[in-house]
């Protein structure tokens, strides 16, 4: 028996999805289409002389050694952010799992940073580590560390990685906690009876069973580091010093808004679009199949 609900009115389903479709078309497809269109043009900022140049902008971008450097920098940055956001989150989740009294309180506190806007998170870290006024920079100076993220590219990179990772820890924490709770207790108890220590249990049972969650979070964190860290970088370093913290998404903004180089900026955003499509495809293909909530 066919149990599908049949709408007598052919128009109604379309009407019902229309608002959603309209939002997607206006706020996603239209600007994306504009970006693709502009990536094929060469023009001045005011649009007084516009010429079609085909794929010249892409050729220019991909043969620009600065762009390749930025690509590598972005990979390093994303990898570091993912690791720095995943490892503590896992530790916190394992610890929070064991807390009996006040568990809700701990969990709530650990989730709080996720509610903070990226730019605010950036400014918080900027103040703490500002060479002139920052309390932690003051401490570092007392310890004899020559800390100056305004000049030292390594210091600056460290600062944005910490700020970006810090904000993401809460999100990872939630998923790890859920993952931990879904591990069958019987397995752990059996292991205990066999005399396995805490570390041994974690290494041989908990971590392997968590791997789908970990893999999912790895992809999500890399996507986050690629695209959502703009606010932090803009607030903390503006991509400096000497481009040391300029990642791909920041370069799109700089070349478009500061340098008014619209062709190159559009080409770069089309490349970024391709990357995000690729990452999403990977996530759908490998992750969605394996993660069980």
């Amino acid at each position: 028996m066919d149990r599908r609900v049949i709408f007598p009115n052919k128009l109604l389903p379309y009407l019902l999805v229309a608002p959603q479709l309209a939002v997607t078309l206006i706020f996603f497809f239209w600007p994306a289409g504009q970006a693709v269109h502009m990536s094929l043009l060469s023009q001045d900022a005011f649009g007084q002389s516009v010429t079609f140049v085909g794929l010249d902008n892409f050729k220019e971008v991909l043969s620009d050694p600065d762009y390749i450097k930025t690509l590598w920098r972005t990979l390093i940055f994303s990898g570091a952010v993912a690791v720095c956001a995943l490892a503590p989150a896992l530790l916190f989740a394992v610890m929070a799992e064991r807390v009996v009294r006040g568990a809700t309180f701990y969990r709530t506190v650990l989730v709080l940073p996720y509610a903070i806007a990226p730019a605010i998170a950036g400014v918080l870290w900027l103040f703490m580590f500002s060479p002139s006024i920052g309390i932690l920079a003051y401490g570092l100076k007392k310890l004899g560390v020559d800390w100056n993220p305004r000049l030292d590219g390594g210091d600056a990179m460290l600062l944005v990685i910490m700020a970006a990772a810090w904000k993401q820890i809460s999100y990872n924490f939630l998923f790890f906690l859920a993952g931990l709770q879904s591990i069958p207790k019987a397995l752990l108890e059996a292991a205990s009876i066999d005399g396995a220590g805490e570390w041994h249990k974690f290494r041989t049972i908990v971590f392997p069973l968590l791997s789908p969650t970990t893999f999912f979070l790895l992809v999500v964190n890399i996507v986050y580091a690629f695209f959502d860290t703009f606010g932090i970088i803009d607030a903390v370093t503006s991509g400096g010093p000497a481009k040391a913290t300029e990642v791909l998404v920041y370069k799109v903004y700089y070349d478009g808004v500061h340098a008014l180089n619209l062709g190159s900026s559009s080409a770069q955003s089309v490349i970024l679009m391709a990357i995000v499509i690729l990452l999403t495809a990977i996530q759908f293909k490998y992750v969605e199949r394996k993660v069980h909530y």
Partner: protein
Amino acid sequence: MKLIRRAIASAIVGAALLSGNVFAQAKPVEIQMWHALTGLGGETLAKYGDEFNKMQSDYKVVVSFKGQYPEQRAAAVAAFRAGNPPHIMQMFDAGSGDMMGASKAIVPVSEVFKRAGMQFNPGDFIAPARGYYGLKDGSLLSMPFNVSTSVLFYNKDAFKKAGLDANKPPATWPELIAAAKKIRTSDASACSFTTTWLAWIQLEQLGARHNVGLGTQSNGRGGLNAELNFSNPLYVKQVQTLMDMQSDKTFSYRGRSNDASAAFQSGECAMITQSSGAYGGYIRDAKFDWGVAPLPYWPDAKGGPYATTVGGASLWVFNAPNRSVSEFKGVAKFLDYLKSTPVMTDWAKTTGFLPATNAAFKYLNDEGYYAQNPRTAVAIGTLANGKQGEHTGGYRFGRWTEIRDFYHEEVEKALQGKQSAKEAIENSIKRGNVAVRAFEKTASQ
């Protein structure tokens, strides 16, 4: 009796006419003005908009803050492309070359006044600003508004503590280096010297101060085909000086734009090369005795110290297909109000910017303002009364904001020890010329 009756009658008629006038009047023409001034400057500008609106009823000026200069410019570009740019936009010095290239997007200020049928004399503005924002025929492209130049601020308390004469600030770079060393060895302050606006001061202002150019075609003012050529040993020496001072720990790099300002204001750094526009902020917030000195120069350079050049921003008028004559008239009226002596003198006194017009300067001078506030007189002294030369009148290159950042990046690399001073300058020129050529390609029709 008759007279009184007549008076009453005419009063009634007059009142009727007046009120009738109010009712019959069309909606005032709206004039949009965008600016990028934060804090005191922005508030003061908004106040002038309100006052202008109260003075007359034909036009209504809407003054709005649209973010920092690059964001504001991007917003204006988008608005222009959509056919509805602001009427007036405030644009900083470095953006002038880009605005000039947009010949269809802007209407020169001289032309705006002509269309409005109003008097406009570019000669009213102080000569350095006139040269910077003007054309060869003497007409003005944009109206100079917040005018500043670069000076040296120094902490008198720290100078005394280091055993230096607090009333004799360093006039030359060697003197500044010696003073910085003394401050360092006596531990009078944690940091001896820093600078804001790296490219604007250590490249552009330095060039003007020694009458050395930045590019061909009289610093880009002669045409879009100009090339950057600031490979003069002076520029290399300046970067080398900063590098040497950094390794002596007498110079501390604190970021590109105005980031270093906090280090002087908190008393951490004893000397800072800075925009004269910082004056108002230091008056309010610095809790120590400080002085202002002209930007230091190199005594071995030919011809001695020249004038510094103009910084700050000017007001540009946008064109659009649907702009009416009455809108241009309103723009001209408001600009005329802004450049009037009462507004200009109030602006200079409130914000610490320099008066943009000769009349306002004369008024302040006659009033004894500069005699009472000698610290504000320093900037106008080096800008307007300094020795003028071929290269003191400023420069004009497209994409200069980006080129400034090339310089920032290359000098930062040199300060990180990754390249020499000479390489920093050479790379800036090389990268700058690519941008200048790309601008020429898209800007010339």
